[in-house]
Structures are given as structure tokens and as C-alpha cells.
């Protein structure tokens, strides 16, 4: 590694102070005494993962990442400026041009639930009031559409809806059948004592009693599958990581939650943060990993603060640290904020982002269980998946299997939004029908009949009213050609312009493609253009339909990752259901 070439622009005091506060003042090389060739090279590698926090600090300090600020960070971390600039320009929350003002920026959601809740009117109102508005993808607050998030400059980020009711409760609160949501509204999310009084950390103690092998076996026997969208068997993943020897290992909670329509992880993290930390510790114990990471999307300030508070309190109480919970094993947790990129929820892109690189997915194989974070063995799970592990460890696999179906055991969190009377997070046993779930959410609201439900988010598919009898299980949804995905159920009535919704979905993928592979980088753009053309002309010719199919096939067949694989799915289902104006 040659010495890094750094330009002449200098950072100002505010930027330097912010960066020092975020990543400490421990340069990768000491200029007077060593060159990178000596110890600096190794330390540079070790410290690259601080790039994302440092960029956040610069963005917050000035409202943009200035050339001087970037140079300073590059000098401290010894990252080549071109690479750091490539990283900064990857994320929605960072800007690299001077905005010309030092005001906060209001992000307003453009995705489906907010599209049908007058988001454009909100934008007009905010802009008339002099606010700087940024049009954002789904903000994970679909139950409070139209959603906003305020990115602070020189002060903290905040969510206006939280100022009205910080303690957002859930519709099913107090229901004794709840397993994953049982603490919500009951336990004080800021107090370890309150969490322990409700049985918190009993599962970790039980896991230590059982030993790692028995925990992995119980998870495998329970039939628990991943709740992040892909439904991969969790026991298989944990056992694979547990079997890796002799290298540092990691467990990661994938809290990037950015699938349009999904907000269940936010509700869990905001209202039961200690459970997320405890379950990560159980995963660490079971897999023999010493390092726990929480990668949380940047637009979740309340959840981030509560998780940080939970980690701090647990560390102070000895539940994390050198001898975590008296287990004889070291385990600790670090929290990292994303910066606005749907793709960073894809597991390998998340690793790249956390390591301080552009959030571009890596090809699999090799898989994360052998080559994950820092190319070391890693178990990565959705927080909802992790919370299930607490129940399984405490009550055993058989008890767990008493709910749900043979192939889909347990309960599932659903994110109800759109035209339902009581939008929010619901917990149901697998096998409940779609119709019953809509009833649970108070039925439809507004005028018109049910036209369609979007299942699984933008990466999922639309189903018609004939699917109301569909049992919500992995097997039934698969058989009917749809998906539970991350648990999104967004209801639309027949007075909604579904063409506009589909145009927006295609725009979402166009904006969120990382740009690495040709089928997705160009395909998502051509798909969006075709949808816009369709909307303007109102006619779906046979030629255009063939084009849509051709594009969908190459994205499914030849893209690198799940984003490209699913980018055409919702749109094609809408065309098949005849929801789009002019469809033949």
C-alpha cells in the first residue's frame, strides 16, 4: 500500500470535532514516526469500518460532506479519497454538494402506503412553510402514512410522529396469546430492571445452562425459519457457524428494514430493545461468536437510541462483556447505522457497508456462514427471527411447534397498512387466513371494495380478493405464487389508481439498484420507462407486454442478488391481475 494521496482542502473545527467525537482521535498512521508500510497497514484495515460513522458525523455537522471534511476522514483512517467518495455517494442520507443552507431536511415517503395517504399534499404544505423536503423511499412508518423523518444538521435526527406519541402501542396490546409482542406496552423499553422483572434474560441464562449444542438443536427442531424475507432455516445457519473453528465469528442483527411496507422490526426495536440484545447474545452463545453487531437503518433514530441504551445498560450489568452473563464466554455488541440504501438489507451488501465499502452485494458462494463480515464466519438474522429464539430456548421446540402449521411453525408478525381501519403490527399464528387478518385490522376503510393486497412488499406480489381464504403459511403462499416475505399486507381499494402505484414500485427499484450488474442496473431503468410509457399512453400493446416479460426474465435469471431477482415480481403480478390501466 502506497501512502495515501490527499488533496489540499482542509476540514474546519466543527467537522474535526464531529469526526473525533464519532470515531475517536487515533489516526491509522502516526506521521512523525511511521509510514503505512509498518504498523499502519494493519491498523488501516482494522479501522476501515469506522468510515460510515465518520461520514455520518460529517453529514450531521455541516449538512453535507465537504472536500475538506472528506480529506480529514481519509487522512485519519488512511482511506483513498476516491474510494471514500464512492462510499459517500452510495447513500441517500449523504450529500456531497453544498446545499447552500444549514437547515434540517425533511424526508417524506414516496412509497405506496404514503402515496395513497396524500404525501404530495404534505410535501406541498411543508415546502410552503419553507422546509427543505427530500423525497424518500419507504420510511418504515407505513402505519402512520404519510411518513416523515427529519435529518438534523448540527442536532439530532427526529421523527415528527414520535413527538406526538413516543410510546407507540400496538393494536393487540395485552392479548395473552402474544409471544413476540408480549412485552410491548408492558415493559419500559428504557429500563433493564423493567425488562428483567418481566422475565428478561431468563432465556440467556437457560441457554447457558443448556450449552451451545442443545440450543442449536432446539432451534433446528423448532423449524424456525428466517423472517427477513427468504425463510431460510435458522437452525441450519447457526449450526454451520457453530461448526467453524479457530477464527473470529460474528452474529449480526439485520435491522436495516427497508422493504416498502415493512415496519415490524422498528416496532420491536423501539418497544422491546432489550429483547433484541438478549436474543443476539443467545445467538452469539449458540454459535460461539464473540462479536455481535446491530446494523440499523439510518432513518430510525428512536430505535437506535433505545438499542444503544439497552446495550449500555446490559454491559454495565455484566450481561455483555468479557464474561457475558456469567457464561464464561466473551460477547459484546456494536451498533452501526446505515445511511439510506435498501440494498444494504441484503446480507452481503450489509457486510460490505459495515466494513466501510460501497454496499454492493458479493457473489454467493461463498456464503456468510464461512465468509461473512470481514470474510469471517457470520450468522445474520432478522430481529424477528432472533426474538423467536428466546421463546424456543425458554419453552422448548415442542411447545413452539404447538402454534402454526407443520411446515410453518410458530407465529408471524404482519405489517398491516394501506386502506385498513387499524394499521399496525399484528402477531398471528401461521395458518390464519388473509381475510381474518384484514378483519383483525378492523376491515377496510374509505370508500370502495377491496381490489388487491400487496403481499411481502415491493419485492413481493399483488393478490386479488379471491385470495382472502388463503392461509398465511410459507407453503400456501408459495403454492399460490405469492410470498409472505417480510410480512407486508398492504390493502388497496378499487378507487385507487394502481397504475400509479406500479409506476412508483418500478421507480423504487430503479432508485435502489446498486448498479453493479447489468441486468438490474439497466433493467430496472428500462422497466420504469416502460411503466411510465404505459401510464402516459394508457395502452399495453402485445409488444410492450413481451418487452416487460423479456426484462423480467433476464433480471430473474442473471442478476447477482435478490433485488434484481424480485424487481419485476410485483409489477408482473399486477399486470396478470388486470390491475393496470390498459393491460390486455
Amino acid at each position, binding site marked *: 500500500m502506497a501512502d495515501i494521496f490527499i488533496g489540499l482542502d482542509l476540514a474546519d473545527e466543527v467537522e474535526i470535532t464531529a469526526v473525533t467525537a464519532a470515531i475517536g482521535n487515533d489516526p491509522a498512521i502516526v506521521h512523525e514516526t511511521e509510514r503505512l508500510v509498518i504498523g499502519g497497514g494493519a491498523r488501516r484495515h482494522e479501522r476501515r469500518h469506522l468510515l460510515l460513522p465518520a461520514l455520518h458525523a460529517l453529514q450531521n455537522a455541516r449538512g453535507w460532506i465537504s472536500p475538506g471534511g472528506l480529506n480529514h476522514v481519509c487522512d485519519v483512517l488512511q482511506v483513498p479519497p476516491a474510494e471514500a467518495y464512492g462510499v459517500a455517494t452510495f447513500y441517500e442520507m449523504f450529500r456531497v454538494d453544498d446545499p447552500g443552507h444549514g437547515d434540517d431536511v425533511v424526508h417524506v415517503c414516496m412509497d405506496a402506503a404514503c402515496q395513497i395517504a396524500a404525501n404530495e399534499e404534505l410535501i406541498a404544505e411543508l415546502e410552503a412553510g419553507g422546509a427543505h423536503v427530500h423525497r424518500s423511499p419507504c420510511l418504515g412508518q407505513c402505519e402512520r402514512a404519510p411518513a416523515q423523518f427529519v435529518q438534523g444538521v448540527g442536532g439530532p435526527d427526529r421523527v415528527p410522529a414520535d413527538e406526538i406519541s413516543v410510546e407507540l402501542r400496538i393494536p393487540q396490546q395485552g392479548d395473552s396469546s402474544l409471544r413476540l409482542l408480549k412485552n410491548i406496552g408492558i415493559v419500559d423499553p428504557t429500563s433493564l430492571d423493567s425488562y428483567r422483572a418481566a422475565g428478561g434474560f431468563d432465556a440467556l441464562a437457560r441457554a447457558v445452562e443448556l450449552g451451545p449444542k442443545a440450543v442449536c438443536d432446539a432451534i433446528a427442531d423448532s423449524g424456525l425459519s428466517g423472517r427477513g424475507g427468504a425463510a431460510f432455516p435458522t437452525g441450519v445457519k447457526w449450526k454451520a457457524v457453530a461448526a467453524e473453528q479457530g477464527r473470529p465469528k460474528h452474529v449480526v442483527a439485520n435491522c436495516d428494514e427497508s422493504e416498502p411496507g415493512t415496519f415490524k422490526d422498528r416496532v420491536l426495536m423501539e418497544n422491546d430493545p432489550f429483547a433484541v440484545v438478549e436474543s443476539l447474545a443467545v445467538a452469539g452463545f449458540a454459535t460461539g461468536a464473540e462479536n455481535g453487531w446491530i446494523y440499523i437503518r439510518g432513518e430510525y433514530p428512536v430505535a437506535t437510541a433505545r438499542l444503544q441504551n439497552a446495550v449500555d445498560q446490559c454491559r454495565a450489568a455484566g450481561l455483555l462483556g468479557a464474561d457475558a452473563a456469567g457464561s464464561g464466554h466473551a460477547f459484546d455488541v456494536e451498533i452501526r447505522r446505515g445511511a439510506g440504501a435498501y440494498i444494504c438489507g441484503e446480507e452481503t451488501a450489509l457486510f460490505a457497508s459495515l466494513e466501510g465499502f460501497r454496499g454492493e452485494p458479493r457473489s454467493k458462494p461463498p456464503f456468510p456462514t464461512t465468509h461473512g463480515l470481514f470474510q469471517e464466519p457470520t450468522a445474520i438474522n432478522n430481529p424477528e427471527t432472533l426474538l423467536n429464539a428466546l421463546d424456543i430456548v425458554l419453552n422448548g421446540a415442542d411447545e413452539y411447534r404447538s402454534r402454526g402449521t407443520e411446515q410453518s411453525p410458530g407465529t408471524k408478525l404482519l405489517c398491516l397498512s394501506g386502506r385498513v381501519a387499524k394499521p399496525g403490527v399484528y402477531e398471528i399464528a401461521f395458518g390464519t387466513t388473509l381475510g381474518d387478518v384484514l378483519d383483525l385490522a378492523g376491515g377496510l376503510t374509505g370508500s370502495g371494495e377491496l381490489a388487491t393486497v400487496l403481499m411481502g412488499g415491493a419485492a413481493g406480489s399483488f393478490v386479488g380478493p379471491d385470495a382472502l381464504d388463503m392461509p398465511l403459511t410459507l407453503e400456501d403462499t408459495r403454492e399460490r405464487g405469492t410470498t409472505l416475505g417480510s410480512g407486508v399486507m398492504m390493502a388497496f381499494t378499487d378507487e385507487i389508481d394502481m397504475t400509479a402505484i406500479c409506476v412508483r414500485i418500478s421507480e423504487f427499484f430503479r432508485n435502489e439498484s446498486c*448498479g453493479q450488474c447489468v441486468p438490474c442496473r439497466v433493467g430496472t431503468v428500462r422497466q420504469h420507462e416502460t411503466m411510465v410509457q404505459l401510464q402516459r399512453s394508457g395502452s399495453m400493446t402485445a409488444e410492450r407486454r413481451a418487452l416487460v416479460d423479456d426484462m423480467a426474465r433476464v433480471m430473474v435469471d*442473471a442478476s447477482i442478488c435478490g433485488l434484481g431477482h424480485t424487481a419485476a415480481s410485483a409489477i408482473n403480478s399486477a399486470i396478470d391481475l388486470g390491475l393496470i390501466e390498459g393491460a390486455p
Partner: protein
Amino acid sequence: MTVTEVSVSLTIDGQEVDVPAGTSIHKACESAGIDTPTLCWAENLTPVNVCRVCVVEVEGSRALVPSCARPVEDGMVVETDSERVQHSRKMVLEFLGSGIDLSQADDLGRWIDHYGAEPDRYDQPEVPAQKMYEEPKIQDDLYIRDYDKCVLCYKCVEACGDDAQYTFAIAVVGRGFDARIGTEFDVTLPDSACVYCGNCIGVCPTGALQFKTEFDMRNAGEWRPEEQDVTTTVCSFCGVGCNLELHTQDDKIVKVTSPADHSVTHGHLCIKGRFGWTYVQSPTRR
């Protein structure tokens, strides 16, 4: 040291093929006499497998597989000409051609014809297909960057970074279709870390990076590759012994390359070998 070569046996298009373990599917195809299009792959760079033009069908794998990067496995069954493979390769070529100037890209025209790709079918009456549109960046007398022609194959970034030069002057910047190759804040090359080794030019498959001499001659309509000679020699500046290929037209050097398979250079040079030849044809030299 003795190296024991373990051999792997697989089936490609119904043909039994034996190759050493660790060989890529693409190389195995080559040894079976099957020609595969590639764009982001190069002999002297780590595979990034992003262009997807080389995909093949592997039995048991749901998605198609990039042949340039995937190592062969014993018993693998590979199809290189199935309908799915043809479709994906055609679409990738169409997508590239629909937004990028491929007029100077090595070899791609042949494959576009082969797969019957129609890059023009994406321009729609009310919504023209978005293109890569950039003014050529001419910032010095040595080389130009014309990103209208860039397919984002990452080769230049790899050559400038840890596959060869370790200078890291350029990176992929931005996201999605707006991603480009660039320097920090788009500073000019002379203001960047660039050391003018020209290794990025050497690996660029599309003419997006070009010697200034070539660029000027093309603009003047004087670029005639069919009339050019290539003379192989050894660089005279230092003792490393890099092989140079001097491309000459009308007895004037017009550009310099180095063979990718040369054991000393692996195709890469430094500023002296790459650009330090103008003295040869200086009018003041006697």
C-alpha cells in the same frame, strides 16, 4: 516444490470435459472449444462478475451462473447455449447497447449479431431510453476519459487499485444507473492521486479510456488500425524489463501496450513505459 494437479470432470453441452480443479467454467468451455462472450473478465484481473454476459446454465442452480468466476465442480452439468442462456446474453447485450456507445468496444458487435440483440427497441414514443451521457474528459495530453462508452465493468478501478497499481485514484461513484467511474468530487486527474501509469487504459474494453493520440486521430478520421504495425520491445528506462508493444501508424508511435500474459508486466506498465516515448519522434531530435 511439486504440485499435484487434481482433475475435475464435467459435462458441457453434452460433451465430457476434464480440467484441473479450480478452473473457471469459462476456461473449461474454452478448452472444449466453446467460445463465450466476456466483458468484465480479464486474464490479469480478479473476476468481479458484474456484466453477466458470460452466464451459463448449471444443473441444480436456480439462477444462471457467471462462467468467468465460478470454479468447475466434479460432475457439473453445464449448458452454454440453452434458450435461457441465449435469452439472458441477448438481453444483457441489448441493455448495454440501449444506453452506452459500444462503437469501439472489443468484440461486442459480433456477439450482438450472434444473439440477435435489438438495442433500439427501448426507445419509446413518449419516454426515450435514458443513456449514459457525459462529455469526454480531456484534462491532459496523455489520455482522455469518455464515459459515454463506459459499461461499468470495474476493470479500470481494479487496475488502478489492488490488482495492479495500488494508487486508488478512481472509484465507482454514485448508485444504480447514475453510477460512474470518477475521482473524489470529480477533481481532474492531474489534481487526483493518478500517476499516469495508463493501466486503466490498458484494460478498458470499450474505448472509454483512450490515449489522447488515438482520440485525436479518431476525431480527425485518421485512425486506421488495419495499417498499424505492432513492434515488441523492452522498455529502456529501467532494469525491470517490461515488454512494450509499440503500435505504429505511418512510422509514428500512436499507443503503447504490454501483453497481459507477460510474466514481468501482466499487461501493466508505468508512466515511463506507457507515455515516455514522445522523444523518439521529437522534431528536435537528431
